[in-house]
């Protein structure tokens, strides 16, 4: 029973981590908490759904389509709402509020198009098979979700560690002025970051839609709250922190449902986050903020 819950927790937590990793990357690089990340997640889910139902694409091409769509949306949000404020050197709050506006607009338009009902992937889109690994029974769907989300996260980490542009992103995250003095086009790094992070958010949307077999226009809200909790828990701007935080939240939610009550799921898991933050106020991997001279 407990081992079985681990499989469920991994599937849920890996998607939380995937959502949060882009969320935290945008914060780390642009220093903006983009509250449109939930709406981007929802649009990604619908883009994946349309790719499957209209164009009969398989799961990998559908996810790639969704990533392209949500990545472009993230790029547009940055260009339209965040960039003008950045140029005027507003900090943190103004762009954050601008992204709330974006989220509202995107959600309203989507509700106009898709209404409020839940959409489903075609029956048996991911065949209902399961595998025994030791004492754990993993469904094919869980394997697909865990496999895709971890592959995407590992790819992101490799891109950041190994490639020239990945290193440029890390340079901008540490100090945008120093980065500019190295000839790094900081503005383009912001755009690349917005695109990539949103693409990952969109992929998380498709995987969530598959996990619960439901896609609806208001699915962005709950994940956004979890995402905020996860990146604070992990340490703002820290990629490993977002991964760890996502998995912790997934585990605590599944375990509360399994052993206590589904009524208290959110109360218990957010209570747990609160406790961890009492012990480590800057998050698991967060550093005590340095004062800048």
């Amino acid at each position, binding site marked *: 029973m407990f081992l079985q819950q681990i499989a469920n927790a991994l599937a849920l937590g890996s998607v939380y981590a995937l959502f949060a990793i882009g969320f935290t990357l945008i914060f780390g690089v642009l220093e903006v908490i983009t509250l449109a990340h939930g709406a981007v997640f929802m649009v990604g889910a619908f883009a994946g759904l349309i790719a499957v139902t209209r164009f009969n694409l398989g799961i990998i091409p559908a996810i790639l389509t969704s990533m392209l769509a949500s990545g472009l949306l993230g790029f547009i949000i940055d260009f339209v709402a965040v960039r003008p404020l950045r140029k005027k050197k507003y900090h943190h709050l103004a762009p954050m509020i601008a992204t709330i506006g974006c989220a509202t607009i995107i959600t309203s338009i989507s509700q106009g198009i898709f209404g409020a009902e839940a959409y489903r992937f075609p029956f048996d889109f991911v065949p209902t098979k399961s595998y025994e690994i030791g004492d754990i029974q993993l469904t094919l769907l869980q394997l697909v979700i865990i496999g895709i989300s971890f592959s995407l996260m590992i790819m992101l980490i490799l891109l950041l560690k190994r490639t020239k542009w990945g290193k440029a992103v890390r*340079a901008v995250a540490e100090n945008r002025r120093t980065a500019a*003095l190295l000839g790094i086009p900081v503005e383009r790094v912001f755009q690349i970051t917005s695109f990539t992070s949103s693409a990952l958010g969109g992929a998380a949307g498709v995987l969530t839609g598959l996990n619960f077999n439901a896609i609806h226009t208001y699915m962005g809200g709950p994940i956004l709250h979890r995402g905020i909790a996860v990146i604070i828990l992990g340490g703002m701007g820290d990629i490993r922190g977002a991964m760890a935080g996502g998995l912790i939240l997934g585990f605590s939610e599944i375990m509360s449902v399994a052993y206590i009550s589904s009524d208290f799921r959110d109360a218990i898991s957010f209570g747990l986050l609160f406790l961890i933050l009492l012990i480590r106020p800057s998050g698991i991997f967060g550093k005590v903020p340095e004062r800048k001279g």
Partner: protein
Amino acid sequence: MKRVLELTEVYANYGHIQALKGISLTVNEGEIVALIGANGAGKSTALNTISGIVRAAKGKILYKGNDITKSPAHLIVRGGIVQVPEGRAILKTLKVIENLELGAFIRKDPLQIKKDIEEVFDRFPILKKRANQPAGTLSGGEQQMLAIGRALMARPKLLLLDEPSMGLAPLVVKEIFNIIQEINKNGTSILVVEQNARMALKISHRGYVLETGSIVLGDSSADLLNNKKVIEAYLGG
């Protein structure tokens, strides 16, 4: 002599303060030019205005005859003007070798970049030892070497140095200034900003004195070293 850099009546603000009040200066090909002055005289703002980090409010900046007054910072680097910022400003969370690789961000010749990294390692053997350490773990002197090495990776035609001696032990300062002269002998023009006026004037060909945003003196460094006013105000009598 060919002009590499020419500032004409440049004004710039630092926050709400008018930090530069119409400064004019030139750097010729092959020269080391020192810009000396007290803390807060506007020295760093001058370099940042040249680098495009601070926008000139008025005036003109010519680089090899081209107007770069309004160019974005990354294109100025691409053109060959590279700054080693004050306080070294290395990327602390990145490895030493990654700092050097990013120094060559504007270049597209991976093989030659690798050779140039080796060359930096030959010049600063300690960096080779620390290549895979986060740059934040280096000592002050090592960080300055990394900052200079990283700037060289861009193959600058004009190197801007902001207080290279700041916070370093006298022996290390000497070493850094020797290296600056060496870089210059290899054909890079240099504009160096310093509070350590004696050191800067000793290694430079010409110098300017900046006082509260205005250039009050400009002469050959040898003459400045013997100038009464300079001796009184900057060389400690």
